[in-house]
């Protein structure tokens, strides 16, 4: 097992958002984290990359056990080196070009020589179909293009796992497809991914596992085929039904 997460708790201002979340991830898994808004999905994902500090919880990453509440700077750096994070609002560096966005982490944090970083970046941008816009600034790109550059920025770090926090939620409907198809392609290439999403088609057809959360608890988790075809819990059935109805 690549990633084993146990008993994650997190409160904000005395309100408990996460009430003991567990998740096991194998290499190549694509896990869709589903649930109504306010269920704690995003907070959970952010705790895994230390963008929030969990109050409690243990993560075992490649055999290294890390206390999520009291991780050292070295441990945090090690986890971030093995992971990439794709944000809902892309968070591309606004004062940097597309190419610089992808190379900055390589040259500054990993001390990769400039020309080598450029090669890595161009390859990553080719994978998301953005290699023709190297000198554009984020402000000159559409949301879908920005999100693809953000994915390339993550890919350039050669991560073992990519976290996606609602990667298509800020996009206009006509731009969602281009981002999802990049993600589908990554999944097919065997990339391990954790995806907080409201895209049911993606969850159903691309993800291998589902983690269904509500009110800070895991309601149901398992293979996505099982979850969509034979949901065990009444809440899961209701959630799937509402989502499907909402689309009509």
């Amino acid at each position: 097992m690549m990633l084993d997460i146990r008993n994650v708790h997190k409160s904000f201002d005395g309100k408990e958002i996460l009430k003991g979340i567990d998740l096991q991830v194998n290499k190549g898994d694509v896990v869709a984290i589903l649930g109504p808004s306010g269920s704690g999905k995003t907070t959970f994902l952010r705790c895994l990359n230390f963008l929030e500090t969990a109050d409690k919880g243990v993560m075992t990453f490649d055999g290294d056990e890390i206390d999520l509440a009291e991780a050292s700077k070295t441990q945090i750096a090690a986890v971030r080196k093995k992971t990439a994070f794709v944000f809902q609002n892309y968070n591309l560096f606004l004062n940097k070009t597309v190419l610089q966005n992808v190379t900055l982490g390589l040259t500054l944090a990993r001390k990769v020589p400039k020309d080598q970083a450029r090669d890595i970046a161009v390859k990553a941008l080719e994978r998301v179909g953005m290699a023709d816009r190297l000198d554009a600034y984020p402000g000159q790109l559409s949301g879908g293009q920005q999100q693809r550059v953000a994915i390339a920025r993550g890919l350039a770090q050669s991560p073992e796992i990519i976290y996606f926090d609602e990667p298509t939620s800020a996009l206009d409907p006509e731009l969602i497809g281009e981002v999802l198809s990049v993600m589908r392609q990554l999944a097919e290439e065997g990339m391990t991914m954790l995806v907080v999403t409201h895209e049911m088609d993606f969850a159903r057809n691309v993800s291998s596992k589902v983690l269904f959360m509500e009110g800070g608890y895991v309601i149901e988790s398992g293979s996505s085929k099982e979850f969509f075809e034979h949901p065990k819990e009444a809440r899961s059935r209701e959630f799937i039904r509402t989502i499907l109805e909402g689309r009509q």
Partner: protein
Amino acid sequence: MAPQTTWQILVAAFPRLLSYGIRVTIPLAFLSFALGLVIAVIVAMIQYADVKGLRQLCRFYIWLIRGTPLLVQLYVVFYGLPSVGIMIDAFPAAVFVFAFNEGAYMAETMRGALESVSRGQMEAGYCVGLSYLQIMFHIVLPQAFRTAFPALSNSLISVVKGTSLAATITVMEMFRQAQVINGVYYRSLGLYAETAVIYLAFCTVITWLQHKGEKRLSAYGGNR
């Protein structure tokens, strides 16, 4: 020099005034501004990072400077400090006071600009492995400077004009020179108006540079 008419006096005074303006006023203003900007960035960054203890010190500095007149600050440093054994020459004393004075205002400008940069920029930086300072210097500060640029240009203009106060602590800058010439020829309206026109010309050049700078900075578009 034995000029007769007011006009002749003004024409003769012009090169002298301009020369003091270029040799003293401008260097005094730019030195003070540059030093003030360094102070402002440090003070703003300390507050942005919420460094315990130092943050209160920064607030105290801003409160003290903004709450007292620049002229009084000049007098305290140049005429007051010698009585406790601290003697500073007029020019460095002026640079010191102007830098710390404008620094307090620019620190607030920079703090606001830093806070306007989306927190997501910082998070994205962490996620690609950058350190806090790397993110500050490569991502957050450049974006903050862009936001602060018009207000900082205001500060520069304010410093240029403010240097005329240095005349009161014996710095022989452009305005002091005008006073000296006026002492000989007694043409107050003409000479002081002439001096005002030269200040106006300096500030016009700065405004022009500001527009050029803003155009360059807008290269990477909006999208906030």
